[in-house]
């Protein structure tokens, strides 16, 4: 990276570490002092490609390859217009085709292929899709949203952790101090020999430790509502894009049993079938069971497949 330099005054990063390179829309570099000198009037032509440039459009070069700087610049501009989201399309395939189209436009603009025509296409698009562009301006893509959410979560977790450790430390310190004080008191008043007291104290200290340990594992963060929505998250009320598809229509089930017709459930008693099965006890009926159900199923089983097909 040290051999990067200004093409006009031939200063390099190696010779002047504080050299600041600038890029304009055409993708050619100039160092800051050259920019100051050449563009005193606020506009001029590029030294290398003669494109008319404005001084205010010069940016600090971020990347080693100035072409990338140019591309990113163009891309940002294009994406401002082509800002449709995945849910504006009915299928993934269309969305992918759209993405490719966008990519083509960026590619053409950066590599100076068909610039005029591409610009026309862009303008055409902008006119056609004014509403959507306006609407999508504020919206993030779904993935962007996901990322934001993750970041938020991360922040919350780290914040919580910091608080927890702080509290924990204080609690421990207090407990230990209390324990020590208790020991001193006991040594003062108790009649037991000191060795026993010390041993007791040691036991207690160990218990305390384990208690603290257990508490540590029990703490669970509570930053999610029971519905799964994050606390503090804003829920968007934007209309959901309409999905066009045929509605489902119920069609009654029709089974060919290859057998004589099975009597209906409510006819079973009249036809005398129920006389041959165990009557349901009150306990059974409490659960919604009736002897007719079992009987009906048994008859269905028995009748099906009786006729050879």
């Amino acid at each position: 990276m040290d051999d990067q330099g200004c093409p006009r005054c031939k200063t390099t990063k190696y010779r002047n570490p504080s050299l600041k390179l600038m890029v304009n829309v055409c993708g050619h570099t100039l160092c800051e002092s050259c920019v100051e000198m050449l563009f005193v009037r606020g506009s001029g032509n590029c030294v290398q490609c003669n494109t008319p440039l404005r001084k205010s459009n010069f940016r600090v070069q971020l990347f080693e390859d100035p072409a990338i700087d140019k591309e990113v610049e163009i891309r940002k501009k294009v994406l401002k217009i082509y800002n449709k989201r995945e849910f504006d399309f009915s299928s993934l395939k269309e969305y992918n085709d759209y993405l490719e189209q966008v990519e083509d436009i960026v590619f053409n603009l950066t590599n100076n292929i068909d610039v005029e025509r591409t610009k026309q296409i862009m303008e055409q698009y902008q006119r056609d899709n004014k509403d959507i562009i306006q609407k999508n301006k504020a919206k993030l893509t779904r993935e962007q949203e996901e990322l934001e959410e993750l970041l938020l979560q991360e922040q919350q977790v780290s914040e919580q952790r910091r608080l927890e450790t702080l509290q924990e430390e204080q609690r421990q310190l207090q407990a230990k101090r209390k324990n020590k004080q208790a020991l001193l008191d006991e040594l003062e008043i108790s009649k037991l020999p000191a060795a026993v007291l010390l041993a007791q104290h040691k036991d207690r200290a160990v218990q305390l430790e384990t208690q603290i340990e257990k508490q540590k594992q029990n703490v669970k963060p509570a930053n999610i509502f029971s519905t799964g929505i994050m606390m503090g998250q804003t829920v968007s009320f934007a209309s959901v894009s309409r999905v066009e598809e045929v509605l489902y229509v119920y069609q009654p089930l029709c089974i060919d049993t290859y057998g004589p017709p099975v009597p209906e459930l409510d006819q079973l008693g009249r036809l005398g079938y129920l006389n041959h099965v165990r009557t349901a006890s009150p306990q059974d009926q409490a659960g919604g069971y009736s002897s007719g159900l079992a009987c009906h199923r048994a008859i269905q089983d028995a009748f099906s497949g009786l006729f050879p097909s």
Partner: protein
Amino acid sequence: MKLNIEGLLVYFPYDYIYPEQYSYMLELKRTLDAKGHGVLEMPSGTGKTISLLSLIVAYQKAYPLEVTKLVYCSRTVPEIEKVVEELRKLMDYYAKQTGVKNDFLALALSSRKNLCIHPEVSSLRFGKEVDGKCHSLTASYIRAQHQSNPSQPVCQFFEEFDAVGRQVPIPPGIYNLDDLKDFGRRKGWCPYFLARYAILHANIVVYSYHYLLDPKIADLVSKELAKKSVVVFDEAHNIDNVCIDSMSVNITRRTLDRCQTNVETLQNTISRIKETDAAKLREEYRRLVEGLKEANVARETDIYLSNPVLPDEILQEAVPGSIRTAEHFVGFIKRFLEYLKARLRIHHVVQESAPQFLKDIYEKVCIDRKPLRFCAERLRSLLRTLEIADIADFSAITLISHFATLVSTYSKGFTIIIEPFEDRTPTIANPVLHFSCMDPSIAIKPVFGRFQSVIITSGTLSPLDIYPRILDFHPVTMASFTMTLARTCLCPLIVGRGNDQVAMTSKFETREDFAVIRNYGNLLLEMSAIVPDGIVAFFTSYIYMENIVASWYEQGILENIQRNKLIFIETQDAAETSMALEKYQEACENGRGAILLSVARGKVSEGIDFVHHFGRAVIMFGVPYVYTQSRILKARLEYLRDQFQIRENDFLTFDAMRHAAQCVGRAIRGKTDYGLMIFADKRYARADKRGKLPRWIQEHLTDGSLNLTIDETVQLAKHFLRQMAQPFRREDQLGLSLLTLEQLQSEDMLQKIAQIAQQA
């Protein structure tokens, strides 16, 4: 010997068996019966490998439908070879006992570097070169070109294998790496691809951890392994670090520069292909529009092991439109690369989470999360389409694409740390972006999810319950086995003070203390006078070792030690270290006696065994804590605390103690071996440290061997060594720590065995 393990007939290829081996097999059988995972700790040198192999092979023979395959993962090539040799012994025994010809296929798999038989390729020195060269001879389009243009070189071994090798199954038998090569030479087939193909129907596969844990390799090699396999991770005490390393990415300025050249090559190739063969790019484009459906179908039908780098959502969706065409994708990579370069140009350390990174990248260069997620897959497709022969050159861009996919896929469990310089050289700018994985369970999750039984075993896994917690799985058995001994052949001593009563410790505040260093020197000096043959001493770090040795030199301690024994030092240079090791062994061999000064977590502490006279005493100077100021470690500790409720201190102590145990365990490699284990730090005497040592060491740690002075240590050591020097025959062991079949079947022995395993 034929054993009856709860109704299972097990052939054991030796005439005698250790009681703990029997107990180990019992536990293992229960694990397999329950079709669950297990964590088993058994001391080194008690025949873990053969117990594992003989039980699982017996299980496979008895229930061929329940367990179809054994996948045995070990760490290094010599260890893999050792396992195969044991297996060969077992299979020979089977053949002799049953009279039936062996119908098992067992093979070892290693990298191309170890298996290649192509005369030109195999002469290359580095693994990467071999892989790249091999790929340039065997890639499908190279071979297609060869059809039309015979002067295009291809690998004749691969051609031969591809033509006939797949139809003819490799005959059953036991193949180690050399056997595979021989077989390959005889048939004219490529052993590497033969082995990779053969593991699909082999009964036993022995290979390295990485083939299963590293997502990049596992996807190539292991993804089609059957669900009903038993996976064994041997020497698994470091498995969490292996998992973490396999998912972490480090990006330096050099990586980015190489990536830049990669991108340029890609761009040139694309423009060239566009002129000559535009149909190819169109074909790829069409495929991408349709999405990665094939891979999805395969995963749903459960044929493949899932890959953490290839998240599920990707498979169900098509590649986003913004990176569908080749030019757009290259532009995308370029922007990403420039962004990374800009990020590396910093003057202070930055630590951020994945969401923060994603937000920033969207603001700076308008890269969305979704295309990032597809980056690795898209690049792979592009490289395939462009028919780039030498993949090795593209390692940088592949790394970047993996990073892109990982960072956009996992919002938790990873952290990004950008450091402008190394801690040791704060004046030299050497920016590194660490994308470090903090959750080992991410890499190992597919393994636990897919395979019926996964066994994690090692000599040092204490405390057992921490492994299931950090790897996030539920074992059905967790057990630690002790070593039954006819004589107490290990003597752990904790030395806490010098003769001047100054506490000995490597604690940060006192490590520069003159008295501590002198006491450490005196300890080594006294030990060098009474211990025969070899002594291995471990320090906590290279820097600490250098400091101490320098001041020993000034104090004249080194000179005194050298009257007794020669001194060798492990350095960071691998060649130098292996030279030192060789000479150390020579000095032990010819009776001069030697001391090896080495470092915990170094090469010596992990892989080298010091049997018998090569290691009569191990001295551990200090507690080998990791470097706690490292930001990566801090982030990981924080994550452990939040996610798994493991406190920082618990984890650090656990990590230090497992390395200490690993170090001192180097000296005892069997029951006839003996050795002193000296822990030279007063902190070892504390219950929280002592309790984390493996049970087989803890057992021999009595109150009398805690917090000793150097004088007392010398007394105890002298006594111990004199006792151990008495002749010791096999008959002394029989019935106690070595059993014949009859002894094994006796009632009270079975009772005793039941006590060996301690369930955690």
